[in-house]
């Protein structure tokens, strides 16, 4: 367990304790203000080089990370490896060695294989590795920005600033995560973040979309989805990951929607102050009805907005706190 990511890699939220997570949220709070300025830039990482290495398709995460790095004045090397190196037979080690040879301080990495970021961190121990999503394993910055968004909204309701609340607003907070938990790195990171912060987490999904050995996870399983909607303070919906074969885990999308989609009727059961979240991209009409996604309870756009300050905070803490190095 790590109690601060300063100068460290960010590979998995399972490694972080409550203090480490609160530190990121508090740091991000300061960067929210930067993003509201006319000149949205601070010199925190001036002269530092951040490589963005996306082996898997991504739009929002990549844009968000690169925007964050630029607002910290870092130089960004954006390498299009999604379809190139591996298909030409290059090993992960060679790919990262090539990038490292250009002289980098940090690598932001997305990969379709679980554990790829951890492997890379062993190949380049002098470079800070930030996991931007690895297979079904972890998506740490998504977990952080989800927690950040919840804290921000709840703090506003109290008329307080998020930083003043620490992890207090998560104590006893009831979070319901719905959908394809089995194939979701977001679920694995969200659960780690919420549980570390003191929230109670339950999951709802068809049995086939729940992970194996769920009894070992720090979550409860919902028997009755409709009742659970009345219980929840936060409802987080997950995309059905059809590209990972989820399609064959349920008889049809229609049946999934009937059983676990957040339809307009179901949304009526939610408590009036409940928050609706979705990490995107949404399949409107599948896991979430379009009207619900655009309703006042939905904080989905906020989640996207908060991606930048959270990633600024992560880059700042991981990289500014490191000695820097470039190639060995």
């Amino acid at each position, binding site marked *: 367990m790590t109690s601060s990511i300063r100068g460290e890699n960010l590979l998995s939220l399972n490694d972080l304790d409550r203090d480490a997570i609160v530190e990121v949220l508090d740091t991000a709070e300061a960067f929210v203000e930067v993003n509201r300025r006319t000149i949205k830039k601070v010199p925190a990482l001036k002269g530092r080089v951040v490589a963005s290495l996306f082996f898997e398709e991504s739009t929002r995460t990549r844009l968000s990370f690169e925007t964050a790095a630029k607002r910290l004045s870092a130089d960004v090397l954006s390498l299009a490896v999604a379809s190139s190196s*591996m298909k030409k037979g290059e090993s992960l080690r060679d790919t990262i060695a090539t990038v490292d040879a250009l002289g980098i301080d940090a690598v932001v990495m997305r990969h379709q294989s679980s554990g790829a970021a951890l492997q890379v961190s062993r190949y380049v121990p002098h470079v800070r590795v930030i996991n931007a999503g690895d297979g079904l394993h*972890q998506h740490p910055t998504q977990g952080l920005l989800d927690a950040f968004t919840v804290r921000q909204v709840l703090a506003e309701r109290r008329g307080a600033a998020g930083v003043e609340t620490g992890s207090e607003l998560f104590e006893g907070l009831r979070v319901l995560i719905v959908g394809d938990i089995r194939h979701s790195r977001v679920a694995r990171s969200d659960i780690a973040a919420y549980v570390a912060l003191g929230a109670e987490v339950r999951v709802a999904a068809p049995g086939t979309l729940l992970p194996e050995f769920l009894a070992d996870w720090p979550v409860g399983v919902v028997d009755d989805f409709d009742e659970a909607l009345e219980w929840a303070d936060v409802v987080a919906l997950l995309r059905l990951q059809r590209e990972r074969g989820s399609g064959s885990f349920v008889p049809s999308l229609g049946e999934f929607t009937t059983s676990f989609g957040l339809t307009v009727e179901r949304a009526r059961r939610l408590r009036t102050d409940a928050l609706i979240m979705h990490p995107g991209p949404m399949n409107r009409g599948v896991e979430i009805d379009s009207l619900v996604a655009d309703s006042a309870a939905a904080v989905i756009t906020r989640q996207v907005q908060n991606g930048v300050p959270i990633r600024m905070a992560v880059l700042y803490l991981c990289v500014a706190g490191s000695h820097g190095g470039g190639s060995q």
Partner: protein
Amino acid sequence: MNFVLRQGLVVGVTSVDVADVLVVDGRIAEVAPSVDAPSDAVEVDVRGCWVGPGFVDLHTHLREPGREEAETVESGARAGALGGYSALVAMPNTEPALDSVAMVSYVLARGENSVLDVAVAGAITLGRRGELLAPLAEMAALGVRLFTDDGVGVQDPSVMRRALTYAKPLGVRLAQHCEDESLAGGGSMNEGRLSSRLGLIGRPALAEELMVARDIELVRLTGAPMHFLHLSTARSVALVVAARLEGLDVTCEVAPHHLTLDEGTCATFDPLFKVHPPLRPRGDVEALCAALRSGDVDAVATDHAPHAPELKDLPFDEAPAGMLGLEHAAALTFEVLGGESCSPLRFFEVLSRAPARIAQLRQSDTRVRHGGHGGAIAAGEDANIAVFDPSERWVADRRALASRSTNTPYDQRSMTGRVRATIAKGRLVVVDGRLR
């Protein structure tokens, strides 16, 4: 060259005695408390060492032809000799597969030029595709005594049934890699609480156990003998033990890594720990160790699986499965059998005598020109001998391997017990832990 092994603890089938072993012209000439050696005989002092039949590996991937950058018959044989082996059974999952007279003959010929005896396991089906029978009778006529599609199991029960029925009168044994690919396919580690947390797709124990159960029923139906390769779960072994009690002719092996490593190693996402069947939870590891000690498991077989380094630098789910085994198996087996309390009889039983029986290498075979393995240390026997020093402490080093590959999970592990000398094909090929 003639030589005499002086004052080792000679490990017979039922007893051990301190004796000299004289080898003349590739055969054991005399075993006695004190031997008068001819003047040209090389003296080898093996006091404190165990002298028993050379080890026989039922499960070696020599990678030739097709993957010579990872291993060749020659390099694999040298690795085997360092590990105390005098005979290896080469697995047929080469490229192309060993599924014809030509391919089997090629590997046998390469083996004749190597430092030890190389037997071949032929493929059960053409191209190991699990569809059409390979020419089992033609390969059997070359001396092939084991057949397997290892790397994968024969998935279709009707094909496996047909293979057993066809093989039975040939006097050969079919061996199965037990994993139902419809359950295990796409998985890269044991399915369990850890795979769930790590987001790695699992290969459930059920995938192995279902095929073990299925094949036991096929053995019952056909009456053909069968060998179960690299069993990795407590339940698999229990199924085989129950079948044996019913009188079915079934044998099984376990691999050193399934006896010494558990699934926890996969949390590193280091592909060195990726293997099929996968490393299992601690409970299975302990059950396998107990079964090896009790005799429920017949043999230790390495599943020596060299891979070029770049392939083990791939992400965990993309990297090929398998790890090296030949050069560390003896020390690991010694550890599992109790270290200081290890019985030398059991040690040579699981590493040499049982595998030699299963592979039918006990008698020398002039057609394939291999000598006899796994027998007594007695006058008249072919000189295939392993000399093991149970007290030597050493540290495994991936840079010091004879294998062409380095994908061992045991780098820098402290070991007790080491092969001091190996006599294979009647020649002293390893002395003082080094190839001559």
